[in-house]
């Protein structure tokens, strides 16, 4: 098959190779070349049939779902395949979503949202080498968020409740507090997994 009439095969392949970063490094080193080759053939075939947009959507779904499954499988095998091993990460992930919503309602501080996002990433990569760095950065962002909430608290007020600046500030601290709790869960999640695995 050739690249004739295809104006951007290199861009498409570079995009696909970039998306392969979703997979663990050793998996990429082993299969990325073959997967990219297969992607090239599939894309050329999809173009010939006139369904490139549908092909890209299917490819994105394929990459995201399979990379998540590969990572989940690695996480389980890291803890001896124990079914409870993923509980802390899954629980913390759910908590992250809820805390994010709460924090947005309470403070609206971008730093806090970022911190929650990074903490979520730290939970997601519970076993990854970047985890200490991610947790460190998110910890710093939490401090910034806390300071912002203390000095410029803009927490919402419920109808009939105390609308004083002090009250709003107190409410504004709720977001960083939730984030701090989440941060500690992220910090402790591997330990929780070990404890669950051990019992």
């Amino acid at each position, binding site marked *: 098959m050739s690249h004739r009439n295809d104006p951007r095969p290199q861009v498409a392949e570079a995009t696909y190779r970039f998306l392969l970063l979703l997979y663990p490094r050793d*998996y990429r080193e082993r299969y990325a070349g*073959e*997967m990219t*080759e*297969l992607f090239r053939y*599939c894309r050329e075939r999809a173009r010939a049939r006139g369904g490139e947009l549908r092909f890209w959507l299917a490819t994105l779904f*394929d*990459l995201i779902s*399979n990379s998540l499954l*590969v990572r989940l499988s690695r996480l389980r095998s890291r803890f001896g395949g124990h079914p409870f091993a993923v509980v802390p990460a899954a629980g913390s992930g759910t908590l992250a979503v809820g805390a994010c919503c709460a924090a947005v309602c309470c403070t609206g501080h971008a730093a806090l949202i970022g911190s929650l996002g990074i903490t979520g990433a730290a939970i997601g990569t519970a076993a990854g080498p970047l985890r200490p760095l991610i947790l460190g950065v998110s910890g710093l962002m939490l401090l910034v968020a806390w300071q912002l909430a203390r000095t410029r608290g803009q927490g919402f007020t419920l109808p009939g409740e105390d609308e004083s600046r002090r009250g709003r500030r107190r409410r504004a601290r709720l977001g960083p507090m939730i984030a701090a709790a989440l941060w500690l869960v992220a910090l402790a999640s591997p330990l929780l997994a070990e404890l669950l695995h051990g019992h």
Partner: protein
Amino acid sequence: MTMRRREDTGEEMPAEYLPLTEVAFEILLVLADSERHGYAIMQEVELSTGGRLALHPGTLYRAISRLVSSGLIRESDRHPDGAEDRRRRYYALTELGREVAIAEARRLASQVKTARVKNLLPATA
């Protein structure tokens, strides 16, 4: 998926791998008669299922990775001629993989037989 062995003899137990996923069984079927590379596996699976099972690279190589790590298929040392083919990795069925494929085929055949008894499928001539 990791290799499963009988504790007393150390032999692998094909029944322990059952049931296989549809993708895994299709890959074993494709490799039953000869070695293939990833693209050929994808094409043959699509052909044999009448286009119903179209494998994308992520799904195909996750299945291959699991089958290799469980010892049902292996990377082949033989690289057929042709510049393009030499760059590709070929996969082959192991002895354990063949036994597991046979066990899965028997399991499915037994289910089809039951479906016939229950009049869900027409009886064969």
